[in-house]
């Protein structure tokens, strides 16, 4: 089952995929996909993100081997849904997308073993977790000014239930910018795989329903500009569309 959360006709609805291009709202109405505002497909709680979890991307950013996963957290302000706009500040010189498999936790998970880890997963969605590298400082990297900006983490379109994803560690990832392929990878190349991440995190922090783990991105990140349409896509999970907009749209003065 593919589930979505959408705003339609003055309210927020849970919805499921009906026939192509059509959603069925929980109240029985059928609506076209382009007639709704897409929200992140589940109610989020703690947002966990992985840095450098693909060997090729770590190499791309000139990082050395790690002794434990590089984990950081994000706030709810960062989240937007499918077909949202994301702001690129006027002074940025390098803003890039990151196509990531997002693992959504379904129930309390504390000290879960690798072997049992998938039992705690509700499902999967696609994340596009932008970074603006101009703001990187060498304190608590990656500092939140780089990674926790409003609307810089898109999630969606669907929460695909765990039962419908037989092997999450063998999914192709792909990003296109204005239709041109810029990033390709496969979840099989993760350094820390999904069961390990659940075992590792639940070993010191109790995960709960709505917690989400953004599992990192492969190589192939490039700068994006206002007007660009960025599509992050994961095989069997979904195709998440996002558009970059400039400061003008946010009432900020632009210096040129």
């Amino acid at each position, binding site marked *: 089952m593919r589930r979505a959360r959408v705003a339609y006709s003055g309210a927020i609805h849970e919805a499921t995929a009906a026939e192509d291009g059509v959603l069925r709202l929980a109240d029985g109405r059928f609506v076209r996909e382009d007639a709704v505002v897409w929200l992140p497909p589940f109610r989020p709680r703690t947002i966990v993100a992985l840095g450098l979890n693909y060997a090729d991307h770590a190499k791309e950013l000139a990082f050395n081997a790690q002794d434990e996963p590089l984990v*950081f*957290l994000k706030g709810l*302000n960062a989240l937007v849904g499918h077909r949202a706009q994301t702001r690129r500040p006027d002074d940025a010189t390098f803003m890039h997308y990151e196509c990531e498999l997002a693992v959504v936790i379904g129930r309390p998970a504390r000290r879960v073993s690798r072997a049992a880890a998938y039992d705690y997963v509700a499902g999967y969605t696609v994340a596009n977790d932008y970074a603006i590298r101009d703001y990187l*400082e060498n304190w*608590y990297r990656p500092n*939140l000014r780089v990674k926790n900006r409003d609307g810089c983490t898109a999630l969606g379109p669907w929460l695909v239930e765990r039962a419908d994803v037989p092997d999450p560690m063998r999914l192709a990832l792909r990003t296109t910018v204005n239709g041109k392929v810029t990033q390709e990878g496969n979840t099989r190349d993760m350094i820390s795989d999904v069961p390990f991440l659940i075992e590792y995190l639940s070993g*010191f922090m109790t995960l709960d329903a709505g917690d989400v783990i953004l599992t990192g991105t492969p190589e192939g990140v490039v700068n994006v500009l206002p007007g660009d349409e960025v599509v992050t896509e994961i095989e069997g999970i979904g195709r998440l569309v996002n558009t970059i907009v400039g400061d003008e749209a946010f009432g900020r003065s632009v210096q040129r």
Partner: protein
Amino acid sequence: MSLVSGTLYGVLLNYQGALAALGDAVHQPPYKAPPKAPVLYIKPANTWIGDGAPIPVPADIEALQMGAALGVVIGRTACRVPAGAALDYVAGYVVVNDVSVPHDSFYRPSIRLKCRDGFCPIGTRIVDRARVPDPDALAVRVFVDGALRQQNTTAHLIRSTAQLIADVTEFMTLSAGDVLLTGVPEGAPLARAGQRVAIEIEGVGRLENPLVAEGQA
């Protein structure tokens, strides 16, 4: 914890003494320069516990660091707020203990050190903004087993409460129910399983928690 309905943010090195304690290291690798913008981190929902609840001490850790912090509870959406108006966006204040496993590096510390279950006791009472006329002049005291172990004041913040809200909301929106800590003073005391820690912030309140060996809470 209904007190925090959004995200709880901490800020690194916002006391003058905490930054000074690093000395010239702030200019050396891996940091290379002192912080420019506020350096934030998140204490996630699993860390939140109430007044009186036990702080679990991991078996392999001798003592934990007690981080006395003033929590600023946001009352309404704050986006690009000027410092002069920033306190208008505050609902009130609360005492918070930002617990850490002691660590020396601020470059990329593991969240294991700050985000374990129970690592963020939060006072039960929000003191209304109107009853705290100057959040930048509050005495902060930490007691371990009743003995005064740390004393400082929010007058020693690098970014005042209002300036911090202004500088944070320049790059991210704070919403009602979010909490922003204004920093932890230098020399945060250590406490071990079996001890009790109490944090007092003048005019805001007192937060007291026992430390208990993990698994025995």
